[in-house]
């Protein structure tokens, strides 16, 4: 799976949770909670959805590696390859 594929899926799943956010307006290195205006509950929903889509375990201990859009994309990339 290419980095682009991963990002496409990530965008889709984020859109399901925060459809009000325009991707062009966000800072991909900014704090995910701030940029997408998601709370802890939304974040858990997102992680659960991504874990399912990518057939991955995404343990709580890894959450600090998922704190921005880019960090999360890189994390998924690392785990899938």
């Amino acid at each position, binding site marked *: 799976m290419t980095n682009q594929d991963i990002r496409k899926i990530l965008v889709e799943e984020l859109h399901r949770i925060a459809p*009000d956010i325009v991707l062009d307006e966000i800072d991909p290195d900014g704090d995910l*909670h701030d940029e997408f205006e998601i709370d802890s*509950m939304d*974040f*858990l929903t997102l992680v659960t959805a991504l874990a399912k889509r990518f057939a991955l375990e995404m343990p*709580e201990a890894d959450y600090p590696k998922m704190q921005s859009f880019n960090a999360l994309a890189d994390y998924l990339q690392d785990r899938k390859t």
Partner: protein
Amino acid sequence: MQDYDSICENFSWAEARKLIDGFPDGGLNIAHEAIERHLLAGHGDQIALRWIAKSGDCTDFSYQQMSELSNRFANVLHAHGLEKGARVYSLLGRVPDLYIAALGTLKAGCVFCPLFSAFGPEPIHSRMEIGGANALITTGRLYKHKIIALRDRLPELHTVLLIDDDMEGAERLLPLMEKASDRFEVARTDAEDTALLHFTSGTTGKPKGVVHVHEAVVAHHMTGRIALDLKPGDTYWCTADPGWVTGTSYGIIAPLTNRVTMIVDEAEFDVARWYDILAKERVNVWYTAPTAIRMLMKAGRDAIADHEFPALRFMASVGEPLNPEAVIWGNDVFGKPFHDNWWQTETGGIMIANFASVTVKPGSMGKPLPGIAAGIVEVGEGGAKELTKPMAIGELALRPGWPSMMRGYLHEEARYRKCFSGGWYLSGDLAMRDDDGYFWFVGRSDDLIKSSGHLIGPFEVESTLMEHDAVAEVAVIGVPDETAGERVKAYVALKPGFEASDALQLELLGHARKKLGPAVAPKEIVFRTNLPKTRSGKIMRRLLKARELGLPEGDISTLESDER
């Protein structure tokens, strides 16, 4: 606390008042009790606030520094013509400026109203409009995203201070602070002068502005000592955001009046980070919420393995009933139970609690605080009557008269009066009292939703969804959620010409989130052809909820048209 019964017997609010200074003429100011009196007693060098930034960097503020910074802020307010009684709002994350602004506002004799930064523009607007906000302190980002578009609809808002930016219609705070004097004489407020304005949701209509006065500090101080076991010099971590009442009463006022060192973490919940903070900062007293405790439980024992907490003495929880498993889990992993307690925005401070010195009954909210008379009542035609039979279910009620009791709902006398009957304040919560005098939460007596410890009014969410072109009718309820307690769910019936689809569902979700923010917007939206209604056309949320929970539908004699 030593013996619960003897303390209750010997307790009086007049004696509790002696634990704080007050002014010689009988006046009282919360900020004086929180900061200045500790300086006078020679404790200026003690750390008042240790702020942990998202990056993990720590910044310490001594009581002396908090005094000087809040003096500067009070001077900035006066320089902007904000005098006694003016309403100063904050819309900030957990950053030092929020705490400085709160104290400076109170020093200036103004009214402080903290807003939760995850609110969207609509909840912000209604709260600023009802309170008649005169000034706002926020960030450039929040100002741009949430306030600019509202400015025309907030005629009384004349001052906007930004902690990190400079924009048209707003001023950067830092240069103003630097220019201002660090000396200020605390306003000689009267005990009954308004100090704080907190908003709480109603079942119908707009949110209610709950008015608290400076005298509330007597209860904040005393309950901090008794219910949270705060002792001078303790390190204390209240995880609540000051945008909610817990984060102000027990995240600013009670800890400071009790001269503890407060830990404030800017970041959102994170398992590893939280365990690190508890251990590394040697937290003595920890006040948190069931949602967070359940998330820690879910992360399992591995997450805690490398940590030890020898300094941790007392753990408390508030926001919604703490399930017995969580109390027991506390015992297993920390060697001590979580102490659940109960109170509301209206009560200003903790009313019922599990105390350090009293055996915890897992699942119970505990016993009334000294000076608080609580009962279970039934409200009939003749007014509220107490139910004295153990485990009788009724409305949890309190005898009014404690210092932090709300003094009113702003501009809503009728709604305020409705809270009282037969000499009781009616909480709206259903509960039971057992043989030993412990109280047990049963549920809400109304349609309010409790999600992650926050009270959400269905009406506010419904009104926003109704603004969308496609929506004909809508009902919003809370459905059970493993982690958050309840989660907001909306049932939507569409206008003719609109088809239910995945795209429309996302559009509605986006609409709601944009206007309400993630803390209030529904997490789930479902479509229906028709919603259950009474003959008078009122949507029966109760029925939707019973069906969602698989409970008996109860009295449906008023049901005219049913859910399809």
